Structure formats: C-alpha cells, structure tokens
C-alpha cells in the first residue's frame, strides 16, 4: 500500500511528486463514489473531524464538510465569529479544548500565514490546512492540478499562466509548488505592484502582458483581486485593472488555440473574468468545484490511514 510521506497537510511544499499522484489516483476512486446513487462510504465512521474557520469561506468549508460526510466521519464546525476567540482565548487553547472532546483531525483556515504549521507542532491531532493567510491553500492547488489532469490527461508539459493578484494569493503559491512538482511550466501575469519580489526564485517566469501570456499557455488560472488583504492602493482603478488583466471573450478569442480557463472562486464577474468567459465551454470552474470534494475526500482518507490505530479493548 502506498501512503503519504506526511502526517499533516500543511502545504504543497512538503509533499513529493508521489504524494501528488497518490492523492490524484485516490481522488479518481472517490469521484466515482460521489457519482453513485448513494454517495457515501463508511471508511471514517470512527473518526471525528473539527472544521475550524477563523476566516470567511463558502466553497472550501462546504466542500470539506461534504467530503467528511461522504466518508462517514463525525464532524463539528466552528466559526471564529461566534466563538470564545472573541473573548481572548489563544489558538492553542481553543484547539486543545476541542481536542479534549476526542477529535482526531482538524481542518483549519486562519488569516495568519503559518498558523497550520504552528498548530501541528503544538497539538496532538492531524492538521489539514484549508488556507493560512497569504501562505498556502494546498487543497485548492490539488484540485486545480487534478482538473488540469482530468482535462488533458496529464499535467506534465502543460503551460499554465496564473493571472492577477499573486502577491496576496495563497492559491498562487500552492499552485506554483504543485504544478512545478508535476512538471508543468508556469508563468505569472499581473501588474508589477501585485507580483511578489523574487517570485522567479520559485521557478516561474513573469509575463506582464496578458495577451502574450495567453498565446503561450494551455491553461489560464484567473485569480481574484483580494481587496480585503490590501492595506494600500496597488493599482489606479478597477477599470484599469480590468482593461489590462481582465479576461473577456474578445481577448480569449484573439488567441488562435483553445485556452482552458480556471478560477478558484469567488469570482468577481466583470473584473478579472467576464461573465461570457466564466459561462463559456472553455471555463472548467464548476468541474473544479466537483473535483474539490473528491480531492478533499482523498486527502482526508489518506491522512486518516496514518492516524494512530484505534485501541482494541
């Protein structure tokens, strides 16, 4: 049996290529499961999972919750907005209190980069990072790469451009790690103010011109402009951003070959992507959402296999 090389999913950086392929192969089986009349397997019926969301989320939270339910795990949900965190409790105390209720795994989204790694050192449970600030969002990168693999048969050799707010995007960082490990070529495209300095050191190239980037690529991953993380003005106006980096049908059609369009959501229609593109056949945005459940089932299943074996009385 193949197992993951890690005990927690903190980021793509810690995974090796075999881990990625194992997750994809397992997700293939779970994708078949979630298309059955009864979309549930009993594998995790003795595992309890806590979903801790210290930051807003719709898609990721629902996707994790559904994945856990499809595996028959017991789940508890926690949102920071209605919790004792507001009363001054520390993260470690909050999580240890939850673990005292006999929880085996923790899925956590947190606004601070490194929060998941910190937690994995401090508490005794399997940690899955569901997004930590501007650092990593591993399951999103896994489902993006899985969707590319599904569309093209493999990721190796494909040309992928990540467009938009790279500076504030954990999706971009995790995607770069995942695509590089799988042998894809990656370029990033966006206004200079939204590209981190020395991004090339991650093994990607910078292409400031969207047209040129599209001509080069097989896949365009359009990122959202993360206004909530911006402490200052990074570009003159939304209108100017849209004119230079917004993906519209005329721009897409000006490229001779077919470009597959990804978007991690939530979309700002009319800003980074036009409605016509988002709803076109070239966009596989809803496939990404479906694949998200299968990928998260695979990650949870493979990590649960590494939990300490239940004690026999």
């Amino acid at each position, binding site marked *: *049996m*193949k*197992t993951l090389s890690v005990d927690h999913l903190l980021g793509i950086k810690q995974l090796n290529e075999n881990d990625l392929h194992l997750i994809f192969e*397992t997700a*293939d*089986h779970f994708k*078949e*499961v979630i298309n*059955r*009349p*009864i*979309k*549930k*397997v*009993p*594998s*995790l019926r*003795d595992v309890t999972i806590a979903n801790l969301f210290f930051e807003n989320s719709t898609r990721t939270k629902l996707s994790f919750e559904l994945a856990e339910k499809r*595996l028959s795990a017991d789940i508890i949900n926690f949102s920071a907005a209605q919790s004792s965190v507001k009363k001054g409790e520390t993260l470690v105390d909050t999580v240890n209190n939850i673990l005292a209720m006999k929880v085996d795994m923790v899925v956590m989204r947190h606004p601070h980069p490194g929060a998941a790694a910190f937690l994995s050192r401090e508490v005794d449970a399997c940690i899955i990072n569901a997004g930590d600030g501007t650092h990593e969002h591993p399951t999103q990168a896994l489902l993006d790469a899985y969707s590319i693999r599904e569309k093209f048969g493999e990721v190796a050799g494909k040309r992928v451009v990540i467009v938009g707010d790279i500076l504030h995007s954990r999706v971009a960082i995790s995607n770069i790690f995942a695509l590089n490990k799988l042998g894809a070529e990656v370029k990033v495209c966006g206004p200079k103010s939204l590209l981190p300095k020395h991004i090339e050191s991650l093994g990607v190239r910078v292409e400031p011109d969207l047209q040129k980037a599209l001509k080069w690529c097989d896949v365009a991953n359009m990122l959202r402009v993360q206004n909530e993380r911006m402490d200052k003005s990074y570009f003159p106006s939304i209108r100017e951003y849209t004119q230079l980096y917004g993906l519209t049908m005329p721009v897409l059609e000006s490229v001779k070959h077919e470009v597959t369009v990804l978007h991690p959501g939530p979309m700002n229609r009319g800003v980074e992507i036009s409605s016509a593109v988002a709803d076109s056949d070239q966009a596989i945005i809803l496939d990404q959402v479906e694949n998200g459940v299968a990928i998260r089932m695979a990650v949870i*299943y493979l990590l*649960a*296999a590494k*939990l300490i*074996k*239940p004690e026999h009385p």
Partner: protein
Amino acid sequence: MTPKQLLSAPQIELLLHRLACQLIENHRDFSATVLIGLQPRGVYVLDRLVELLQSHYGIENLNSGKLDITFFRDDFRRSEKPRVAQPNQMEVVIENKAVVFIDDVLYTGRSIRAALTAIDAYGRPSSIELLTLIDRRFSRDLPIQPDYVGRQVDAIQNDKVSVQWRETHSEDAVYLIKESL
C-alpha cells in the same frame, strides 16, 4: 517451505466448467441475473466464467460488473497493510436482480461482508449468492457461507492459499503455502 500445488490449470478449467453449469442450473438464461466480480482478484474468476458462459454455453446478454470494496472494509486503520482501491465498473442495474458475488478465495468472510454493504449503494437486489473458487472452510470470522464452491480447502490460520492466473503468472494454478514455524 515449498508451496504445494492444490490445483493445476486443467483442474481449474474443469472446476470453472462445473461452476458455470451450476450457475446455468439456477439462473437459466441469466436475464434477471447480474454477476459481480469482487476487486481485485475475483474479477479474474468473473472474466473466465463470463467467457465460458458466452462462448461455450451460448448464454447471451450476460450482465456483469466489477465491485471494489476497499472503502467498505472493516480493517481500515487496523490492518498493517491497507489496500489500494481498484476501479469500480458497475454500469449494470441490480435493482430486483439476482446478484452473484464472485471471488477467488473465501477466507474470513470479511470481504464479503464489505461487499454486502458496498452493493447497497447501487440498489436493492432481489437476492445475493456467493460463488468462490476456493473455500477455506475452517477460517471463517463471520456467519457467511458460499452457494457455489470450486474446491474446499482445509488450511490452518497461518497458511496462505495463492490463486495464480495466466494473465499475471505463467499459468493457472492454486498453491497452498505453509507458514514455516
């Protein structure tokens, strides 16, 4: 210790013919029957039986599927060697059909229990029977018995019964491997 051969290729061929005839006796034209091979090794028995029933006994419109039970096993997180899942091929309707599970070796019965749970996801069969090439009759953990048996084998707990197929080995054969003490 060297493995002892329990069945040779001609003997296996003979057993498969008998099993095919027994199936025909109970299922006639197979119009209300679905044969389900259990992944990973039951599918070899299934493929052979389907081939025999179609080419040798002239059964047409045979319905069959391949069922993976990995996610339904009761030894997840308990077994030292967790299994790798295999593809499901269940493009058949089992609702109100007579299902026959097909496996190579019936041992503890736990795989069959998992299969009984797994098949639930596809509908409610009118009945479920079990066909197994080898029945290790003294090793059951659960109250599960086969309806069609190729050969009964008396093997103690630590022995291993290995079924080899020409698809993966040089020829068809069944071996008993005694655990050295």
